[in-house]
């Protein structure tokens, strides 16, 4: 057993969890929802175990470093945070329908990491620029932020579906939490994500200042993270100050997550200093 096998296994576990949640919502079978929760817990165990094993393996290769240094490792961590935050929400709000919209994201991230031919899962040594204690703080804060936005994105889509179907014609939409609860929860997620995105940008700036002698350089990834920050800042102001609720915020939350995805993946198409994130 090594980390690669365990993490591939985790991909399938998340796939099953997503399947159970979707079945539970579509066919209104609470049993499948509960199975989904237990599958998620197994997935978290596998995911965490895989990350720890990978960390130990890197030391065995004599190039020890935290497994947060390339696209593969970041995707694996991203999935873990999505599922962990989701389970906390599930417990707090006692509603499993959100699982059908968030666990697929974790599954897709893991599957993309494991299966894409462009992503190497080899444990590689760190290049000089990445050898910093800020690496861990920067990656962890950024991906907690991204994961919270991912869940807000799932909620945004659920909100729009439920609002379109106000008469409750589609049976599975009836199981979604009330509109005001989804609105409130997505707001909570965005505040949480915004705090961590800010912390992620800040740790990145402090790191850049110790590696390259400047805390901000308008590198495409830096700029896109700022664009994302501006979109969510707009959303927060619209809600706090202009009283925006519901549909308009759901759309903004979806746009915000598209910006997150572009900051994460799209920027690799452009050139810049974050090229090791490919």
């Amino acid at each position, binding site marked *: 057993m090594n980390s690669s096998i365990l993490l591939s296994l985790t991909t399938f576990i998340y796939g099953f969890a997503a399947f159970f949640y979707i079945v539970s919502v579509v066919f209104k079978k609470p049993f499948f929802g509960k199975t989904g929760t237990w599958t998620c817990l197994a997935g978290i165990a596998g995911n965490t175990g895989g990350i720890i094993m990978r960390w130990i393996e890197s030391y065995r290769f004599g*190039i020890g470093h935290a497994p947060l240094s390339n696209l593969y490792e970041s995707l694996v961590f991203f999935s873990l945070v999505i599922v962990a935050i989701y389970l906390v929400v599930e417990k*707090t*709000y006692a509603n499993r329908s959100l699982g059908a919209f968030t666990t697929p994201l974790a599954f897709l991230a893991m599957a993309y990491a494991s299966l894409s031919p462009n992503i190497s899962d080899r444990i*590689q*040594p760190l*290049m*000089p*620029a990445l*050898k*910093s204690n800020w690496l861990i703080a920067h990656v962890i804060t950024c991906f907690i932020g991204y994961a919270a936005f991912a869940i807000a994105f799932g909620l945004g889509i659920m909100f729009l579906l439920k609002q379109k179907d106000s008469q409750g014609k589609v049976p599975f939409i009836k199981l979604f939490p009330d509109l005001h*609860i989804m609105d*409130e*929860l997505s707001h*909570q997620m965005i*505040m*949480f994500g*915004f*705090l961590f995105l*800010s*912390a992620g940008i*800040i740790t990145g*700036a*402090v*790191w850049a*200042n*110790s*590696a*390259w*002698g*400047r*805390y*901000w350089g*308008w590198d*495409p990834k830096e*700029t*896109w993270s*700022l*664009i994302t920050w*501006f*979109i969510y*800042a*707009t959303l927060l*102001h*619209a809600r*706090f*100050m*202009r009283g925006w609720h519901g549909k308009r915020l759901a759309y903004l939350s979806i746009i915000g997550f598209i910006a997150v995805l572009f900051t994460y993946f799209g*920027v690799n198409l*452009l*050139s810049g200093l974050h090229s090791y994130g490919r």
Partner: protein
Amino acid sequence: MKKNKNSDSPSNRLWKFFASVKLTVTLLIIIALTCIIGTVIPQNESPSADSLRYGEFLYRIFRVLSIFDMYHSWWFQFLIFFLAANIIVCSIDRLSSTWKVIFKKTPSFDIAKLKNSCKEEFTASCTPHELKTLFLPLLSKLFKYTNMQDRDNGFIIYAEKGRWTKLGVYAVHFSVILLLIGGLIGSYFGFDGSVIIPEGKSVKNVILRNTGAGQPLDFEIRCDDFNVAFYESGMPKEYRSALTILENGKPVLTKNVIVNDPLRYRGINIFQSSYGAMQPENITLSFTDRNTGTALRKKISLGEQIDLPGTFGKFTLNKYLHSYNFRGHNLGEAFAGTLTPPNGEPEEVILPINFSGFDKMRMGSIVISPEDTEQLYYTGLQVTKDPGVPVVYSGFIMMIIGCFITFFISHIRFCVEVVKKKGKSIVIVAGISNKSITGMEARTKKLNKLLSDTIRG
């Protein structure tokens, strides 16, 4: 602000314009959209490459709009300052009223509002008077402010905490202003330069990145040694420069600088950024007598002339050739020298470093072969000064604290009402918060349970 003024006066209208959140939202969206341009169009590249890529017409338009350096263009900076003015005016406009609310000695309560909020109740088998002696000390311990009012058939206690958290949002706004001020200080009083130092040499000036002008330093930087280490895969592992700071020619500080671990001295930061090989200045040569086979090894520097034993005369090392072409083949780095016999014509000798037997082909009576060169490196350092960094960093800290307070610490208010009913008391706990509703429901339940537990035990 400015309540006494005529609301239609121009200054008042200007103030209102800057104090509007619509402006904030508009500016945030415009800045976010324009930021995209600079990530798609490469910044600060050579004009010739730009005009080739976009064609003459587009190139001129982009040029006029400073698209090729858009984050430093007048219009982008104007947008940023517009936003800063908006933030400042908005904050001042609202802070005065918030301030009055926060620092009021006796906060007022709106009972009707509280009663519309999260509510829990229970019945206790004791009189309101007994409950008062239990609840009042407990609530004043848990909350920053409490206020008790007696009613005909009971009493009401108001309790609240977290009023100060309304200041969190001003901390966030102030932090953004700090970041901008820090950035301004950096661009006016700092510099960003680079310098190349060969091993063993020292410099007193750096080249500025923007203008290419020289920037003198108050001290000298000497590179004692440079090393690059590789992983087995050939990927670079570490770039390390051993640097010494010299003040008036005397060494005052020595440090190994690697990526992510700069040297900081008197407000100047020195970062490892690049390296390269210097052209070699000396080489060890071996001179072999073709007849006897006796060899002589000797180290010789560029321009140096040495006397050879016996009748071979003199040898001069003239120059270093970056690449030497021999009958259409590139033989790489080479040295060129002159062999001058005691009585005869001087003869040119080429010594390719990687082909030590090359000189045999000359068929001379002495064979000169290069043995090893001393490879010297230069280190490329980035040298910056940014007195704005402490301001920016305090902005960072303030932003995180401010966001945390604004998002996660709420101003919570409770109203505990006790009404006498048939020898028993009904206790109603109502709570309201300016943040999460769901969180408040849980809090209200918790307080309700705490109060009922107090009576029992």
